[in-house]
């Protein structure tokens, strides 16, 4: 991994439908519509593919700038998840939609993309929601391996940094995860929809 400030980012084009190859559809199937609903946002000017995420990929002392160019083919997605486009429209426009759940689901979907591109070969085996990390690769009791996620609709890197580092009143996810003796490996995966930025950070080992 390069540790550069001004170098051009590595560009990773990724088609969302590829998630059905890279990960088990059991996990992917419920995250696709939220990604379709959340990522484009409401501004037509920003709703054109590819959706470009500037990702700060941190591994130990190294920081790599990565650009994930996300696109999708609605026909291919419909084949994998019939009705997904209409579902996404409902999530975008529905009056009863719970935005907090939508952002969480979209962040899961984007994390699946990040796992598939930045940790090639890793497969999600479990999801948990009552405690971190949300996404797990290895369920060995006392030695879990996984990724903790969060999604923010706005605020960019500053908003993601607050999630990671906390505030004087609230402890951040990084400190919480580092305090855990039962985690053998853990990463943070934070996403913002406007502007489209992300932090992917390995915390352990």
């Amino acid at each position: 991994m390069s540790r550069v400030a001004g170098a051009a980012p590595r560009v990773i084009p990724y088609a969302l439908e590829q998630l059905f190859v890279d990960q088990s559809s059991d996990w992917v199937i419920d995250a696709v519509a939220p990604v379709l609903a959340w990522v484009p946002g409401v501004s037509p000017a920003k709703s054109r593919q590819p959706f470009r995420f500037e990702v700060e990929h941190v591994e130990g002392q190294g920081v790599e700038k990565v650009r994930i160019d996300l696109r999708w083919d609605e026909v291919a997605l419909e084949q994998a998840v019939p009705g997904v486009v209409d579902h996404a429209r409902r999530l975008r426009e529905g009056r009863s939609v719970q935005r907090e759940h939508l952002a969480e689901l979209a962040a899961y979907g984007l994390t699946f993309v990040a796992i598939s591109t930045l940790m090639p070969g890793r497969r999600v085996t479990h999801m948990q929601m009552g405690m971190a990390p949300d996404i797990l690769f290895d369920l060995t009791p006392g030695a879990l391996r996984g990724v903790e996620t969060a999604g923010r609709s706005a605020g960019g890197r500053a908003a993601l940094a607050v999630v990671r580092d906390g505030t004087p009143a609230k402890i951040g996810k990084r400190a919480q995860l580092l305090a855990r003796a039962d985690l053998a490996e853990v990463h943070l995966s934070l996403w913002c929809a406007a502007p489209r930025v992300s932090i992917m950070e390995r915390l352990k080992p």
Partner: protein
Amino acid sequence: MTAVVHDVYEMNLASSGRLKMRAKALLAEGTPDEVFRACVLLHDAARIQRLAVQALPACPPVTLLSSLVEECWCFVEGRDPLRAAETWGLLLLAREAVDAATAEAILSRITPRFEAFRQEFARLGAASPTLRAMVEAGPASDPSRAARVRARKELSAVLARFPGAMNFWWMLYRLAETEGNKSEAWDALSRARQLAPDNARLAAMSLVVAVWALPAAAAEQHLAGVRGTLDRAVAEVCLLYALAEIVLARAAAREEQALRWERAREAAEAGLARADTTELRSNLKATQLLLRELLAGREPTMEVLYRSGLGKAAALEKPDANVVDFLTARSRHLSPELGHAA
């Protein structure tokens, strides 16, 4: 941990995780129907989560604590304050075996969620005096018409906020049943059953409620779904299945009537072999005596109740009361917890 045990553990956890993902997607849509479906899935997920841990021969304390956190989260997101509170108690006990820093980190997400949820429920509970009075009076309470009107209003508010709470659907069932509102009673009991599919009492009650609330063909369909499970069903299911068959036999042609009585007889016999309380044995005995009369071409009387040890209950009824109606109506008023008869 052996490979097989670990596989079972992982398989259960994965299954629970899939249900949680599906539930979250439904919660995101936010309509009442989808939220209720999410609640059902989250209750299933909690049940499987517990099974996963039970499969471990030696569960590390931190794994037990984590599992209880996940289970509690399922009940909080699944809008079931009573089950969430029960699980919270277990979680506090499990926390004692885990080092403080790890426990605090593991509990950091669930603690504020549970506390906010608990407070929300407590506020609504304080604003629902009629429901509280009904709960304290127990399942046999017979509220006045005015109290039922108030209770319905309070229940409506509670179920809007806590649609995952089986006990409140059961209370709605009881109100609707008392008022003779068959479709609402069936719907409420069905929702309670969806949230607690392993509750044998609710499964048993559904048999007698089906023959009371549904058209005969639909009731038969419901009974048919249970018929194949009687060889391993608990005694209470056998008892209420037998009574339901007797009710359906009333309007049946001669040949079908004999078939239904025979099925009822077999079910009562199977139930008697598994009955573990005096009351259940008495009820099954009464059903057997009742069937003996029917098969002999005689109209059963309240005498069968006295002869089977249900004399106290029979003494409160009119001597010419229909014994089948008496037994089935009693069965529709059971509490959702096994061992708490009306």
